[in-house]
């Protein structure tokens, strides 16, 4: 009889666990305040000049992406530069890190713990060389979690978020990132399934939901960013739009008139409005891996380079004379595995099709995004060259004449792409392309990834040019 009671009690407890299990709800924002929360403008830059503005983007690709970006961070850390009469590390000049999926682990860890990223007993042990997949499987096999997973609001991704919070990010929240209060501004990107658009874990995004990002754990944001479709369930974020006296930023109002004049700008406004124009319509936002919308984390920085709209943007900084050099380092762990799909008439299986849909089209799109960055810098240079050419012609024909307007502020852009395509040795290149995008790699594979990042960085023309100008040592 006693045994039966215990069993009934245990069953009741497990059923309660299932019924009570829900995702950790992101808190409501009591009152919209444009200056509050995790934003670029709230981070100090004591050892970091605005005039040299450095943006890093870390792609998706599981542990291989994390290791590749880690290697690049190590190189930036050991590179000393001379800028405006001061000597410092290039790493100290990093202003923004925009990341996706596997790259978000490196980015978030550095944002939270700074130099601890390079301590062999910390990030390397806690994440990089760890078999995270084994831990994820162990969590999924735990019978208590089976009951929790029975709840419709507790998906498999929640187990990953719990693991990342406890084992890697020490339960830290975005309030801790605000408290740290220094650059780089780390932008962890996921994908909003409904809009197919980038969803960034920054307060500017959470304002649209009337939610306070400071109460969200960083591990949860990283889980959303690395939430590979099908393997995990979508991560849920509650939307309280309409409850915090949110005032629509002027750019959204104005951009909503730009359908024909500037379709991408119109689209940014359309996506922003989708969260609050009809309060209650989108009460729960479902997030997947950031790589679904942009697998190199460059779309946000690109918008910040091309537009005055984002809360952190470069045109305004250039106009104010604050920025002289802009450096964008794209760390792309893109895969290009050899497949035998086209060697036989029968089609690939469901898993191969899903993997292909989730990665291949996005890789092609990433090339276009990088191209847009090149074009942006080229356009700026062209505009200034045309101005200088006209100025020179005018001076030759009429020395006393003056140009009708001042030239745009001078600024120099550097695009540094770190990807396996740049490995010269074909066999070596294919070796890296073939590495799986899992959260478990062999130690020697991780070592190789850490080495190849700096090697590719060193051979980049723009990086060499930058280093020559900054007297790197």
């Amino acid at each position, binding site marked *: 009889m006693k045994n039966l009671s215990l069993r009934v009690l245990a069953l009741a407890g497990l059923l309660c666990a299932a019924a009570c299990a829900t995702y950790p709800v992101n808190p409501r924002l009591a009152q919209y305040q444009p200056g509050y929360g995790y934003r670029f403008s709230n981070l100090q830059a004591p050892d970091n000049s605005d005039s040299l503005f450095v943006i890093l983007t870390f792609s998706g690709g599981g542990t291989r992406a994390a290791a590749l970006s880690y290697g690049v961070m190590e190189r930036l850390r050991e590179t000393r530069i001379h800028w405006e009469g001061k000597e410092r590390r290039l790493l100290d000049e990093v202003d923004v890190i925009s990341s996706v999926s596997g790259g978000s682990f490196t980015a978030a860890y550095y944002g939270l713990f700074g130099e601890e990223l390079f301590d062999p007993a910390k990030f390397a042990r806690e994440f990089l060389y760890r078999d995270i997949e084994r831990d994820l499987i162990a969590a999924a096999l735990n019978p208590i979690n089976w009951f929790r997973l029975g709840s419709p609001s507790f998906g498999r991704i929640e187990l990953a978020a719990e693991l990342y919070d406890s084992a890697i990010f020490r339960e830290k929240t975005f309030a801790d990132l605000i408290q740290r209060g220094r650059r780089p501004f780390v932008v962890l990107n996921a994908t909003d399934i409904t809009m197919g658009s980038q969803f960034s874990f920054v307060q500017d995004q959470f304002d649209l939901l009337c939610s306070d990002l400071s109460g969200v754990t960083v591990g949860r944001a990283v889980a959303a960013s690395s939430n590979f479709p099908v393997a995990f369930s979508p991560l849920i974020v509650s939307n309280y739009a309409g409850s915090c006296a949110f005032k629509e*930023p*002027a*750019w959204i109002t*104005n*951009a909503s*008139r*730009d359908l024909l*004049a*500037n379709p991408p*700008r119109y689209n940014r406004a359309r996506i922003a409005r989708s969260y609050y124009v009809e309060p209650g319509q989108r009460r729960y936002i479902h997030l997947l891996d950031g790589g679904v919308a942009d697998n190199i984390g460059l779309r946000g920085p690109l918008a910040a380079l*091309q*537009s*005055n*709209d984002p*809360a952190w*943007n470069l*045109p*305004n900084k*250039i*106009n*104010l004379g604050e920025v002289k050099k802009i450096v964008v380092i794209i760390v792309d762990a893109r895969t290009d595995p050899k497949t035998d799909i086209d060697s036989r008439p029968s089609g690939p299986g469901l898993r191969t099709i899903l993997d292909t849909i989730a990665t291949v089209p996005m890789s092609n799109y990433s090339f276009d995004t990088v191209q847009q960055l090149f074009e*942006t810098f080229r*356009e*700026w240079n062209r*505009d*200034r060259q*045309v*101005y200088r050419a*006209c100025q020179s012609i005018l001076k030759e024909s009429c020395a006393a004449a003056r*140009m*009708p*307007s*001042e*030239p*745009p*502020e001078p600024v120099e852009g550097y695009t540094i792409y770190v990807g396996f395509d740049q490995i010269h040795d074909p066999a070596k290149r294919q070796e890296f392309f073939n590495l799986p995008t899992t959260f478990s790699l062999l130690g020697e594979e991780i070592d190789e990834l850490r080495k190849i990042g700096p090697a590719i960085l060193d051979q980049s023309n723009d990086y060499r040019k930058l280093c020559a100008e900054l007297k790197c040592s």
Partner: protein
Amino acid sequence: MEYVKIAYLMERKVRIDGQVAGFTNRTLMVERGHHKFDLGDPADYDPGFVETDVQDTTGLSPLVIDAFRPC
């Protein structure tokens, strides 16, 4: 990228769509599209703002907005 110059009696900060984005009498980089320009605080100028479409400009021939006057 488009270019705009806000002509004014003196040097002041210019706001584009509510964000401080440069100075008067200088050529400013602006994204193509519809924008609201003002000179921020103190609001001792008239009109209070100018809304306009910015397109088809160059660094050599920026859109010049010379509507602002002290009041």
